[in-house]
């Protein structure tokens, strides 16, 4: 498993990029943070509205902000993959080994995919259309509120365990 992950995720070209340019790792971190901020800002406002905050805002109007959340999600995912595929340049441990032994990274990924499945459920179950129809002052149904709550909790958990990744057990 570890060997397979190392084969798939250890990318010499990314390692060389991080090794050659001392600004590359901090730049990647700054872009990762910027994406996180766009994601939490737009999706956070959307979820909080569904949970009942600022109910005078029609939900459909907030949907125009969501492409910025998708943009944030995309750049955090890309920079996250760059950290992973180039991690050897930073800590001299290959990515497969980090993935197999770092419990915090695993938890981060669990909540990342949980947020993804939650979102798929939101769009596949008709909840997204239900949410879009909520005009000024309208209260979301309890299943839509559950979706919004799960979404917020998942993203907060992704940030928490993401911050802990560097303290994961790597001695194994």
């Amino acid at each position, binding site marked *: 498993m570890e060997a397979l992950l190392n084969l798939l995720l250890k990318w010499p070209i990314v390692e060389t990029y991080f090794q050659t340019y*001392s*600004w590359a790792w*901090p*730049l990647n*971190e*700054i*872009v990762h*943070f*910027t994406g*996180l*901020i*766009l*994601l*939490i*800002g*737009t999706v*956070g*406002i959307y979820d*909080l509205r569904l949970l009942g*905050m*600022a*109910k*005078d*805002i*029609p939900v*459909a*109007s*907030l*949907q*125009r*902000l969501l492409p*910025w959340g998708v943009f944030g999600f995309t750049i955090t995912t890309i920079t996250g993959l760059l950290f992973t595929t180039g991690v050897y340049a930073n800590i001299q441990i290959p990515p497969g080994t980090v993935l197999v032994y770092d419990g915090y990274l695993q938890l981060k990924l669990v909540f990342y995919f949980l947020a993804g499945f939650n979102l798929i459920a939101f769009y596949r179950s008709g909840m997204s259309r239900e949410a879009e129809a909520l005009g*000024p002052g309208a209260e979301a149904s309890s299943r839509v509120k559950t979706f919004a709550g799960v979404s917020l909790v998942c993203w*907060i958990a992704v*940030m*928490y365990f993401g*911050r*802990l990744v560097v*303290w994961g057990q790597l001695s194994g």
Partner: protein
Amino acid sequence: MEFLSFFENSSLAIWLRESPSVLAYPTLLAFHTFGMAFLVGTSSAVALRLLGIASDVPLAPLRKFFPVMQIAFAVSLISGLLLLMLDAVLFLTMPVFYIKLLAIVGALTILRFLRVRVFSVPAPSEEPVLAGAMLLCWMIAITAGRVTAYAPFIGWQSGLAVLILVCVLLTGRYVVLRSSAAKTSA
């Protein structure tokens, strides 16, 4: 300096710095991240609205999100002061740390102005220039904050790299929007 060492050597500082528990230093850093995410995230989303994105969103009810920003600011400030206490001498002798603080003061001043002049009056002007200036302040604060972990030279290089990246992205967006506008009119 004597005065700063007093904080650095307090028992709280020693526990936060030396405890192997993940609830000590790592969780403190995570709270600084939560505060940043919700303060900068929510206020940036509001700034995007003032810049004309999602212009259907009514301005007045967005005011309800300011308490979220205030709580997030309190979390950032408290966690930030504790983090500062752990390494007071290091941070307070670092020029880039003062750039971070100035940028935060700039962004918060604009945010306060927006709350009073845009979100608390009927039929306000949307102040897109101030909204853009706040986004710029946040970008400087995030960049300066992140590079405090690196040697000064690497910090300046990273700052330049961020500047180039932002210019490329903004130019790209301008070109795409202009060409799509030209297609619509043609």
